[in-house]
């Protein structure tokens, strides 16, 4: 359940959180479409994610009408780490383990089903280069970054957390040419004292292909406990706590 929940939540983040509208043939499918009412043969999501400490993580997720036989990226077969089948939608969800991904590369994709093989190629957006200033609750947060090519879409996702665990979350779609963003301090003023600030900047390319949808993301993640200056070890400890906390929330959320 936890894996299923995590997968669904990632879908929510990676897709537009639009309402019940049917997806247009050219626009992004909505998260609710992918979760509740998938219509395409498949939805493939590939992400290379960089944290502010330069840790790189790669994710590959597939929501598919048919059971998948195998999948490869750039000729390398991927291991399927988990599968879930949703009896409500009739779709399979796959969590696959990729090789290390590279920003900006042209990715060749192969999905092998019993009755057909889908092949495609898509450009992974370049690496987002960023050196964010420390979050200061008393001031606007002015951010700048570099991105060598304009992606199809660009998002800025942010969370601010108070001591009592109240949150402000704000998801913004940016013009793909934009390379700076200022978050007004009014965004988190509703919370009072801030315990943590977090954002993710996402660059996305996508294509509809052979009855399905393929999207690739490069992202940059930032997390800060801004109230006091922390050592790196303290920061890493907080990351572990955050993971534990997340698992607890997942447990609660799955009830």
């Amino acid at each position, binding site marked *: *359940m936890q*894996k*299923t*929940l*995590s997968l*669904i*939540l*990632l879908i*929510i*983040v990676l897709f*537009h*959180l*639009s*309402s*019940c509208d049917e997806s247009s043939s050219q626009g992004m499918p909505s*998260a*609710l479409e992918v*979760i*509740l*009412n998938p219509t395409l043969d498949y939805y493939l999501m590939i992400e290379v*994610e960089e944290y502010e400490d330069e840790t790189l*993580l790669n*994710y590959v997720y597939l929501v598919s009408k048919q*059971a998948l036989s195998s999948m490869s990226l750039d000729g390398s077969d991927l291991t*399927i*780490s*988990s*599968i*879930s*089948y*949703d*009896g*409500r939608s009739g779709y399979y969800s796959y969590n696959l383990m990729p090789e290390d991904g590279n920003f900006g590369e042209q990715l060749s994709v192969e999905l092998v089903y019993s009755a057909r093989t889908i092949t495609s190629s898509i450009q992974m957006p370049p690496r987002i280069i960023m050196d964010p200033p420390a979050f200061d609750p008393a001031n606007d947060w002015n951010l700048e970054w570099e991105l060598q090519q304009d992606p199809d879409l660009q998002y800025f*996702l942010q*969370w601010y957390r*108070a001591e*009592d*665990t*109240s*949150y*402000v*979350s*704000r*998801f*913004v*779609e940016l013009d793909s040419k934009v390379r700076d963003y200022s978050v007004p301090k009014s965004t988190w003023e*509703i919370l009072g004292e801030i315990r943590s600030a*977090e954002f*993710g900047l996402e660059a996305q390319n996508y294509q509809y292909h052979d009855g399905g949808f393929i999207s690739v993301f490069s*992202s940059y*993640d930032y997390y800060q406990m801004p109230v006091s200056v922390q050592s790196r070890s303290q920061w890493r400890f907080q990351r572990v706590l*955050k993971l534990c*906390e*997340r698992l607890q*929330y*997942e447990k*609660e*959320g*799955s*009830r």
Partner: protein
Amino acid sequence: MKYLLVLVTMFSLFTVCSCDRRSGKTLPSEIEMTLAPQEDFYLLLEYEYMGAHSTEDPRLRFVTKEPLAALYLDDVQIEVRNFRYNDVYGNTFYDYSFNLFDSEFIAGSGDTIRYHIVLEEKSIEGSLVMPNMPIHIEQTFDPMDDLNLEWSLTANPRKQELDVQVQSDSYSVSYYKDLPTDVREHTIARSTWQNVANIENVSVNLRTINYEFRHGGLICFVCKSSYWPWDSLGMPNESDILKRIITKNIQLP
């Protein structure tokens, strides 16, 4: 796996129905309530039972486009534990959770519960019956056999739904059925889990739901009853072992 912390708290997955594409309103999923709210507010109260016992603090959640000033259940003011203010691509709403455990609110399944919601611009009052708790006649799960489920339920709710999760370490299958409200048994074909090798866990969850759309919002009371006919070691559960001891199928030394 970023961003999950906040989003995980935004919903659980099992209150069902897809989007309302007809003229009449149907119960939206909790995902829809909390990711793309269409109504002015959603009041969700859920009791969870394992056997005859409530397992947890009831889950109370209020999603609203306007800030909440106060919430009363049976005239007891319920303290806000925390809130989330979400701006999801321009769609803004608050999502509150509460400290029910510390309150004096004591209503149980089958009780009529009065609610009083005070928003900045309006106040909403009404009452709704918390559905009765379905009582499972617990079955032993046999992967080689169909799963025949039975339960008892005193009064028909407005909606009744069943979900069953069958999981191994790397494969999970979810089964869902929106059942007629007067049904008290259901069979799931063994083919449902035929691809799941080395089953580690099976959970059976029945939900009885009463709801009403009122004053531009939705009030939804859920009673969830769960049991696990297969434990993590791939063995019948403890209650089944106990039954077998009672019926002398297992002899104690």
